[in-house]
């Protein structure tokens, strides 16, 4: 319990640091990003909306600390301002309409990469120096050396343009409306394959190697020798004895890798014009839509922090040593 409270405190501080960063970035920037932003939208906004935005970005005369507390208060009420590029939708609405796609893409690819990567890692460690152990790690490191977006483009070119097997971009075909029909779900899945595949390809090597290395350390433990001496079936020793204990570092890196996956999703979404918040983040930057940029950044951070807290809770369940100390 103490452990979890400490972690929770840490996440709160981390989130506060992000809000603070968000608050000060536009205020401390050399030059004037805010007036650049205003110059392009002023004509279509009501005076009170312009005023609200000015306040959001510190173009008002109140003392800094007062602005700061108003800002934090607004964030906690979910009020992140109005999007300029999608005027007049509020930022929270824009994010809400797109976060689902990112969760779908990131979640699917992360799940596949983790399960498959760890499984391959267990097998590779179990058969040291055999085919799986000698061919896969270097191959996967090599594939993982390619930039996310480049692999995405290569996959797009190969399977999308040249072979024409899979759709080129977006999350579903134009003209289809969201429904629980088989056709719609199939269409979404077809659009998901390529982006998810690239993320899996790039990230699976890390999981496999990490698992392999902990597995090798674990199989050297005495209780494995004991299990062998008892004559247990190899599969049982491999999964129930060794892999179970070697899983712990993987659980920790799971939390850490979430941020990485979000980043990877950002690049992949850009290549495939996949309508998630990563793609929206980039579009908002290009459109100088600062409220949306900051809102997305905060949302992503909050999501990653929350997910990490979940991992902590799971970790406490898995590792009794944490509960005792």
């Amino acid at each position, binding site marked *: 319990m103490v452990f979890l409270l400490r972690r929770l405190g840490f996440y709160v501080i981390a989130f506060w640091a992000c809000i603070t960063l968000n608050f000060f970035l536009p205020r401390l920037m050399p030059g004037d990003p805010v007036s650049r932003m205003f110059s392009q939208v002023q004509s279509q906004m009501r005076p009170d909306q312009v005023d609200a935005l000015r306040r959001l970005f510190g173009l008002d005369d109140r003392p800094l600390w007062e602005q700061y507390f108003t800002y934090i208060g607004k964030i906690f009420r979910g009020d992140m301002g109005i999007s300029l590029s999608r005027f007049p939708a509020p930022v929270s609405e824009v994010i809400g309409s797109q976060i689902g796609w990112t969760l779908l893409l990131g979640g699917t690819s992360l799940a596949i990469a983790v399960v498959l990567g760890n499984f391959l890692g267990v097998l590779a460690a179990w058969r040291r120096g055999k085919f799986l152990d000698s061919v896969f790690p270097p191959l996967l490191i090599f594939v993982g050396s390619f930039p996310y977006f480049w692999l995405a483009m290569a996959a797009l*070119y190969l399977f999308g343009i040249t072979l024409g097997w899979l759709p080129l971009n977006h999350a579903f075909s134009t003209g289809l409306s969201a429904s629980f029909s088989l056709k719609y779900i199939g269409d979404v899945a077809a659009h998901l394959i390529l982006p998810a595949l690239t993320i899996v390809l790039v990230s699976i090597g890390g999981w496999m190697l990490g698992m392999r290395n902990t597995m090798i350390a674990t199989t050297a433990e005495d209780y494995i020798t004991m299990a062998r001496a008892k004559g247990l079936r190899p599969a049982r020793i491999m999964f129930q004895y060794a892999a179970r204990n070697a899983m712990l570092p993987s659980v920790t890196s799971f939390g*850490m890798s979430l941020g990485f996956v979000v980043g990877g999703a950002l690049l992949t979404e850009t290549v495939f014009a996949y309508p998630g918040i990563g793609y929206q983040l980039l579009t908002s930057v290009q459109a100088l839509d600062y409220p949306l940029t900051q809102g997305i950044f905060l949302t992503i951070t909050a999501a990653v922090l929350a997910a990490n807290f979940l991992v902590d809770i799971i970790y406490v369940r898995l590792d009794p040593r944490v509960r005792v100390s």
Partner: protein
Amino acid sequence: MPLTDSTPTATTTAGNPTVQVPEPAVPGRLVHGGFVHGILTNKKALFGLAVLVIFALLALLAPLLAPGNPSDFGPEASLAPSANHLLGTTSKGQDVLALTLWGSRSSLTVGFIVGLAATFIGCLVGIASAYFGKAIDEVLSLLTNIFLLIPGLPLLVVLAAFLPPGPATVVIVLVITGWAGSARVLRSQALSLRSKDFVAAAVVTGEKAWRIMFREILPNMASIVMSTLLGCVIYGIGAQAGLEFLGLGDTGSVSWGTNLYWANNDGALMTGDWWVLLPSGVAIAVVAFALALINYAVDEITNPRLRVEKKG
């Protein structure tokens, strides 16, 4: 002296990093000799080093190999690879080979600067954190963990969006988002060294704090610093490419990232000009792979458990 000392040791204890150093006057020297020997006899490391040297040479010789400004538009647009243009030309008539060669200069420089700077900050924070402990450790660890947890690429994008564009911004932004990982690894390593007797002895003899940190602790974790550095350089090269691909870097310069950015912008994918996209991406991958191989080798040399047992 060290030369005659290390030669026999290097041969007898090659690949055994846990060997005791008999002569404390040259701390780390003999282990270091074994390490260099290990690197030079490791196939992975040699291959990685060779690739890196080749790329460094190509980058240095770019003005000789491909004279002129690589971004100048030419008359021959969208040509497939041929004898005249070994890697073809872009839709603006630029020679892809020239772009790739010149691009390696920016990419490698930024990658290594970012790697060095991030590792340096990581060393500073990690070792200070471990050495001083208590409140300083709490604060520095908190800072490290926050930076580790904030998703890197979105932070990169936000920072790059607000900072004025330019090469310095790219480096600063990449260092800000990249140092935390190394700080964490180096802290835990320094922490285990902090409790060793030789550090306690140094403290008792009244050595200055910075001296203990950088002359006593740091040399003893050289291999971890090394693999951290390699990791940071890989990160630097990859993240710069990502940032520039998104158009948030320095689009005026020529680097592997900007090459891909322009290729994508000019629709090279849709028109089927695959040769425009291929070289820069492969170059990034090959360099990153070479660095990863060296890293892997460093791991194997310093961690005997990971070595595949030789037959017999």
